[in-house]
C-alpha cells in the first residue's frame, strides 16, 4: 500500500469521530466519511504533500457544508442551525445536552471547536482547513464556547419546534 493510502487509512477512525460530532448522526457521518475517502482517492494528484490529516478534514468539512446547503434548500419550518438531524441516541442527560448545544452552533463555529477540542488540531491547522486567518478561528472558538455555555446554563435560544 502506498504512503498516501496508508495515511488515509490511518485517519479513518478520526474522520469517523469528527463526522459523528459534526452531524450528530451516525449514518450521515459514515456517508460523509465514505464520500471523503472516495474524493481523496480520486484526487491524489491534487495532494501536494503536507499533513494528509488536515487535507482529509478539509475535504470532509467542505462536503458537509454542501450537505447542509442541500438540506437547507428543502423547505423546513425551523431555523437553519436546527436543520441537522437530531441526536437519536437518547443517551444520558449530560451527553445529550452537549449534542444539542453543538447543534445550536453556527456551522463554522462548530467546525472550529470540534477540530480543536476533539481532533486536537492547532489553531494554524484549523485556519488552513477553514481557509481563514488564525484570528478568525479564535473568534469562532470564542463564540462557540460562549454559545455552548449560555445554552448549558439555560439561556436556550428560541428554537421553534413543530410538533
Amino acid at each position: 500500500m502506498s504512503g498516501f493510502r496508508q495515511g488515509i487509512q490511518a485517519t479513518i477512525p478520526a474522520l469517523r469521530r469528527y463526522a459523528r460530532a459534526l452531524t450528530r448522526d451516525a449514518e450521515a457521518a459514515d456517508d460523509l466519511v465514505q464520500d471523503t475517502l472516495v474524493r481523496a482517492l480520486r484526487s491524489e494528484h491534487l495532494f501536494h504533500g503536507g499533513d494528509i490529516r488536515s487535507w482529509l478534514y478539509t475535504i470532509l468539512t467542505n462536503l458537509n457544508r454542501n450537505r447542509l446547503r442541500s438540506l437547507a434548500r428543502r423547505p423546513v419550518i425551523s431555523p437553519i442551525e436546527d436543520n441537522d438531524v437530531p441526536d437519536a441516541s437518547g443517551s444520558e442527560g449530560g451527553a445529550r445536552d452537549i449534542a444539542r448545544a453543538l447543534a445550536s452552533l453556527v456551522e463554522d463555529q462548530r467546525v472550529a471547536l470540534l477540530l480543536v477540542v476533539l481532533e486536537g488540531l492547532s489553531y494554524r491547522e484549523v485556519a488552513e482547513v477553514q481557509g481563514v486567518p488564525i484570528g478568525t478561528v479564535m473568534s469562532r472558538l470564542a463564540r462557540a464556547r460562549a454559545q455552548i455555555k449560555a445554552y448549558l446554563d439555560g439561556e436556550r435560544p428560541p428554537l421553534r419546534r413543530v410538533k
Partner: protein
Amino acid sequence: MIDREPPVTEEELHAYVDGELAADRRAAVERWLASHAEDAARVAAWRAQADAIRARYGAAADEPVPARFDLDRLARQGRKWSRYAAAAAVIALLIGGAAGWFGRGAWEGAGPVRAVTTEAFDAHRLYIAEVRHPIEVRAGENHLNPWLSRRIGYQVASPNLDPLGLKLLGGRLLPGNSGRAAALYMYEGASGERFTIYCRRDQAPQTALRYRV
C-alpha cells in the same frame, strides 16, 4: 504593588485552555486566574465542554472500521465515478412509471446527483399527470432540441426510443433546483404510460478540494 504585567486577554485564556499559549505567558495567565474568579470559572466551563464533547464522541474513533471503508474497493468505485464525471457535464435521468428508473444503484450515495434525482422525480410526477399540456413544445417542431440546448447551456438531443415502443411527445424547460435550467423530454408508450428524461448541467466544480499549505 504595581502589576507590571499586561492584563490577560480572552484570546490568551482560550489559547491557555488549548495548549496554544506561548510558554512565557503561561505563568502569568495562571497567576491571573488565581486572582480572577470569574475568568477561572469560564476556563473551567470551557474545559468541561471539551471533556463532554470528547466523552460523547471520542469512542467513535475506537470502533472497528467497517468494510465499506475498504480503500481498494473505494478506489475502484472512484474510478468508475470519474468516468461518469467526465461524461456527466450533463446529468440525464430516464424515469418511467412501470419500469422503475434506470441507474438507481449507480447514482446512490452522491449528494449532488441525489439532488438532481429529486428534481427529476418531482418534474416527472408533476407533468406525467398532465393530460392536455404535458409538454411545451411538440416533438414535430424542429426547434425543440436547439432551444432546450441553448437554454440549459449544453448540447442535448432527444434520443430515439422508438425501438422500445416509446414515442417522443415533446419537451419543456424547467427551473432546476440549483438555479440552472433543466430540460424535460416526455415519451409515451403504446398503452399511454409516460416516461421522462430530465437533463441539466452539472454543478460548478466542487470546491471541496481547495487546499492551501
